[in-house]
């Protein structure tokens, strides 16, 4: 296929580099420097898609981020699929493979289009809500087919071969947009010496100067662009980021920049390069120079391929040497759009007429057009375009905007291209992403950026569209931003531009038709979502008045383009129907991101192994070598159990439990939180923060402590040892370590800053090897110089000494109910001590055990796990732990007052109890609800639930801990646990201590 619309010369493409690409199974040619859109137009491809709802043929409309129709799927294989790419923003590369996002079996011959044509009139706004509402259960079924018929792009099913990364940056001045405004700002700020980042979303910087008819310093505008960029490139304090979109501005000028590093080179990045990079920039000042989007007019048939926004015509001609048709008609509300007609004429094609909505257009460009012999039809507009797969003719008529009607007879003119311009919508997105509201400006007939702290909006964003004005505004903005960021004052000589006298524009949005809107051929407002002017009128007739409701009901602006072309027109139509001014109707909220951001860029390197940090104990490798299964506790990887041979988990845990109860086992308890507490007031602090008493805890002693929040609810527990008069070591639950440390600091820093006490996390410094079982004393005795005799080293004592020749603190505390020693050694000695214990432990059958066995053994003893058996609503009394509450302590410790509130004194609070299933083979489900009457009609009153449940090899029975209303008074009662599968289990409420209720086993 020949490039029928390519001019013989001109454009910024490199004709010596032809490229081949594939679109919908057709092989086509383009040149380096093309976008996919310009290459498609060069090849005369009119239809690029089928519309979302009606299946109408659609062509390229615009040349930038605002494009609603040319949304394609990229990728030659499954892994490289990228959905919803705007062809106007995709650089062409050799071998590019793209296809239409919509259309089945193909965009050119679309079967769904027939459905849309036949049924279109029966698909009003809210059609899906209205039609597929009942029965609600069927929606899931309908949805599958609706999605297939409509759907946007699809995500890849294979793993993405590319990598993505993040870069955190700071700068003084971030300039968004490198058109005349942004370039002038960059020169001003760059020369002042402050750190500048200049970003532009296009392949080349220069913005409107690259397709301008104007001359700067008497030369082509592009030459000034090249000179300016060359100077900026020499400045070390200026970073230029082309192909980079500022996608969102968040609080305090935190701006995300999406840099497309390799998308112009191929579908996947070469080597180890990152395909996309997300810059996370904290900018002192943002200069918003993001320009404006031209607004098309809304007329009948405005979606037929061959309808463009006027400026896009100039862009395709000047930058790509492409004229997308033969015979042009321009319908405009302003002077600036005349450039499209002049450019078209310069390219040697025919301009049939310029239709101007103004009665007496009289600017310089109008005069030029007139002088070139172009027919200008004033006070009129294109009211309808006609044609099938391409525009064939238009109907033109005089219009009366005030009464919104056509005056007199319409004239029909043949053409294949319609360019329209209803003015310009400033691209204010970044200014209002943090919640500011756009400001309506009548002169601009659009919303301009509001005043926002830290942001200087300049040029077209403020409605200053003329090149000379934009340059001046940009330079001032750059100087101001640099000054505010502490830069030096600079002089800047701006290029000379002939000031052009433009006539005043007229406000035009929807063009009246000789039929009422509801009967006229469709007039599209939002092309991506197939929202018509008639749909907005209907929504208002049905009672929707708020623009936010109209938007949601009609789905206007919900596409991947977020209504960049259509929203203002939609608001204008709503305003007309409601008889209000546009600013009274208001705008919808602009939210990040400006254009879609690939998930890969959001995730960066935080995926796979790097998704979440893992914490390993010093013994991790030993556990791995031993074939342990691991459990995640917070970020820690803890051995769950150590299966031998073909053992199941159940078998392994039973073996480990028996080893501890009958011989000796060892647990890597290094993950326990450890907080070193020092200072003359350390003891006073403990007295206030724990529920129980610490005044008399002597050196060498250990005590179990319970910690409440001030609402009286248990938050954590653990042991604290007295290491010296002013020195204590607190242990916390594995998961609670960081929160407990912060808790202690908060009380100390905000409430009792007068107390002299310091807290230091030593969790990682010490490894904790917990030796447990009747043989633990004998085994430890072989390696330890501490007197382990019952008298010398009592239960709840700790001693300092050596174990396996290494300095150690040994704590005689027990979480299993057996004789136990917790050996703390410096973490880097852990493996040595552990292995020495195993060497000597072989004859005792020393068995490593994991967290599951730990859980079974502690639950058999009724020891709670904070966060499992408690949930922030359990008092110490609810847990039956009154023994751990110092009611008569002098200081009103944290949580005490709340324990005497009426609610905490209720007798029917949920209280911790033991449960013994009637059938010993049953292991109750954790979380299972407890009821008192199994035959009670639904809803059955639920009185509690299971918090911990295991099989006990010692009891040869299932057993559980649970909370039950008034449970402490219900010992021996029978309760029932109805399960989802209809089974109802029977259980007896018993004590929480299942094994060795007198605690004799640990006191040996």
């Amino acid at each position, binding site marked *: 296929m020949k490039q029928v619309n390519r001019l013989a010369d001109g454009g910024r493409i490199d004709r010596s580099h032809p490229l081949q690409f594939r679109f919908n199974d057709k092989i086509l040619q383009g040149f380096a420097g093309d976008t996919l859109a310009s290459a498609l137009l060069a090849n005369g491809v009119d239809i690029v898609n089928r519309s979302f709802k009606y299946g109408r043929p659609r062509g390229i409309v615009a040349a930038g981020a605002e494009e609603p129709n040319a949304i394609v799927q990229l990728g030659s294989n499954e892994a490289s699929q990228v959905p919803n790419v705007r062809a106007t923003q995709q650089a062409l590369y050799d071998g590019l493979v793209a296809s239409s996002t919509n259309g089945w079996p193909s965009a050119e011959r679309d079967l769904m289009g027939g459905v849309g044509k036949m049924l279109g009139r029966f698909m009003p706004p809210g059609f899906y809500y209205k039609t597929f509402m009942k029965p609600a259960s069927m929606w899931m079924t309908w949805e599958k087919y609706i999605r297939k018929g409509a759907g946007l792009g699809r995500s890849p099913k294979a793993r993405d071969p590319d990598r993505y990364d993040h870069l955190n940056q700071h700068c003084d001045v971030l300039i968004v947009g490198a058109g005349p405004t942004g370039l002038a700002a960059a020169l001003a700020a760059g020369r002042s010496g402050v750190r500048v980042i200049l970003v532009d979303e296009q392949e080349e910087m220069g913005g409107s100067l690259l397709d301008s008819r104007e001359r700067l310093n008497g030369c082509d505008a592009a030459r000034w662009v090249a000179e300016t960029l060359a100077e900026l490139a020499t400045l070390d304090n200026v970073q230029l980021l082309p192909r980079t979109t500022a996608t969102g501005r968040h609080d*305090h000028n935190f701006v995300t920049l999406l840099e497309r590093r390799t998308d112009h080179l191929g579908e996947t990045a070469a080597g180890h390069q990152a395909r996309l990079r997300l810059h996370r920039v904290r900018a002192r000042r943002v200069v918003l120079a993001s320009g404006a989007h031209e607004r098309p007019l809304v007329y009948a048939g405005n979606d037929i391929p061959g309808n463009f926004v006027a400026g896009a015509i100039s862009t395709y001609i000047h930058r790509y040497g492409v004229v997308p048709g033969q015979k042009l008609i321009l319908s405009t509300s302003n002077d600036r759009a005349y450039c499209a007609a002049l450019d078209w004429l310069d390219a040697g094609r025919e301009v049939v007429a310029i239709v101007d909505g103004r009665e007496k257009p009289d600017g310089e460009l109008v005069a030029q057009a007139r002088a070139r012999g172009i027919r200008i039809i004033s006070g009129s507009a294109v009211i309808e375009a006609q044609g099938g797969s391409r525009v064939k003719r238009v109907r033109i008529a005089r219009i009366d905007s005030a009464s919104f009607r056509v005056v007199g007879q319409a004239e029909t003119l043949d053409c294949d291209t319609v360019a329209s311009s209803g003015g310009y919508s400033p691209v204010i997105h970044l200014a209002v992403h943090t919640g500011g509201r756009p400001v309506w400006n009548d002169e601009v007939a659009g919303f301009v950026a509001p005043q926002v702290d830290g942001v200087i909006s300049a040029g077209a964003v403020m409605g200053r569209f003329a090149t000379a004005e934009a340059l001046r505004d940009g330079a001032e903005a750059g100087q101001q931003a640099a000054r505010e960021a502490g830069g030096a004052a600079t002089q800047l000589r701006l290029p000379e531009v002939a000031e052009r006298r433009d006539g005043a524009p007229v406000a035009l949005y929807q063009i009246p038709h000789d039929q009422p809107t509801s009967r006229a051929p469709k007039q599209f407002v939002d092309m991506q979502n197939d929202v018509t002017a008639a749909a907005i009128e209907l929504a208002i007739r049905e009672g929707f008045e708020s623009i936010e409701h109209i938007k949601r009901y009609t789905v206007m602006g919900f596409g991947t383009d977020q209504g960049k072309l259509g929203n203002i027109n939609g608001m204008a139509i709503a305003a007309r129907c409601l008889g209000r001014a546009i600013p009274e109707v208001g705008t919808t909220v602009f939210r990040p991101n400006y254009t879609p951001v690939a998930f890969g860029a959001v995730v960066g390197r935080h995926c796979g192994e790097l998704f979440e940090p893992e914490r390993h104990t010093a013994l991790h490798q030993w556990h791995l070598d031993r074939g342990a299964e691991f459990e995640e506790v917070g970020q820690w990887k803890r051995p769950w159990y150590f299966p031998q041979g073909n053992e199941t988990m159940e078998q392994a845990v039973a073996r480990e439990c028996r080893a501890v109860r009958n011989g000796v086992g060892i647990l890597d308890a290094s993950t326990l939180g450890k907080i070193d507490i020092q200072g003359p007031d350390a003891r006073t602090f403990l007295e206030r923060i724990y529920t129980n008493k610490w005044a008399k805890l002597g050196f060498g002693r250990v005590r179990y402590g319970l910690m409440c929040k001030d609402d009286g609810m248990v938050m954590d527990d653990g042991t604290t040892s007295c290491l010296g008069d002013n020195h204590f070591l607190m242990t916390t639950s594995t998961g609670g370590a960081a929160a407990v440390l912060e808790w202690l600091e908060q009380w100390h820093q905000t409430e009792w800053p007068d107390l002299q006490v310091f807290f230091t996390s030593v969790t990682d410094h010490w490894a904790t090897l917990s030796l447990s079982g009747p043989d633990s004393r004998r085994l430890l005795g072989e390696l330890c110089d501490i007197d382990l005799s019952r008298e010398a080293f009592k239960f709840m004592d700790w001693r300092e000494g050596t174990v396996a020749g290494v300095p150690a603190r040994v704590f005689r505390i027990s979480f299993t109910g057996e004789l136990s020693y917790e050996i703390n050694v410096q973490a880097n000695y852990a493996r040595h001590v552990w292995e020495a214990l195993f060497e000597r432990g072989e004859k005792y059958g020393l068995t490593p055990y994991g967290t599951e066995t730990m859980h079974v053994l502690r639950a058999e003893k009724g020891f709670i796990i904070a966060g499992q058996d408690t949930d922030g609503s359990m008092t110490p009394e609810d847990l039956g732990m009154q023994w751990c509450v110092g009611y008569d302590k002098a200081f009103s410790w944290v949580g005490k*007052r709340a324990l005497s*509130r009426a609610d905490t004194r209720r007798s029917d609070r949920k209280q911790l109890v033991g449960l013994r299933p009637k059938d010993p083979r049953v292991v109750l489900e954790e979380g299972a609800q407890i009821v008192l009457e199994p035959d009670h009609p639904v809803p059955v009153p639920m009185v509690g639930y299971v918090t911990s449940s295991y099989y006990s090899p010692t009891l040869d029975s299932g057993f559980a801990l649970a909370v039950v209303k008034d449970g402490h008074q219900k010992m021996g009662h029978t309760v029932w646990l109805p399960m989802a599968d209809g089974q109802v289990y029977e259980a007896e409420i018993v004590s929480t201590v299942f094994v060795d209720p007198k605690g004799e086993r640990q006191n040996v």
Partner: protein
Amino acid sequence: MLHIWCPWCGEHREEEEFHPKGQAHIVRPVDPDACSDEEWGDYLFFRDNPRGVHRELWVHAAGCRKFFNVMRNTVSYEILETYRIGEQPKILAEVNVVALPKREESESVASDARRQAGGGA
């Protein structure tokens, strides 16, 4: 994402380094046991939820681990001031949402606007 000046580190750091800890200047009654249930309930559970200037307690969790106070506008998210525990804000606590002083102006407002607000914290 907020950019927060830590008054202890003397630097602006990213919000990711901090934890918010709720309303600032909540003073624990000196004698909790003398409080009525209602008074104790107020201390425990009742907090302001202003549309406008709010004083919050934050901690530089992944930094110096120090607590400090933040005066923040809950509408614009502007941080008017951060100050250490035990200090009082320089800016009047009642500044209206509409008439918020700009950050640069805050210094001058501060000089004569000291006010005993809240309590010990």
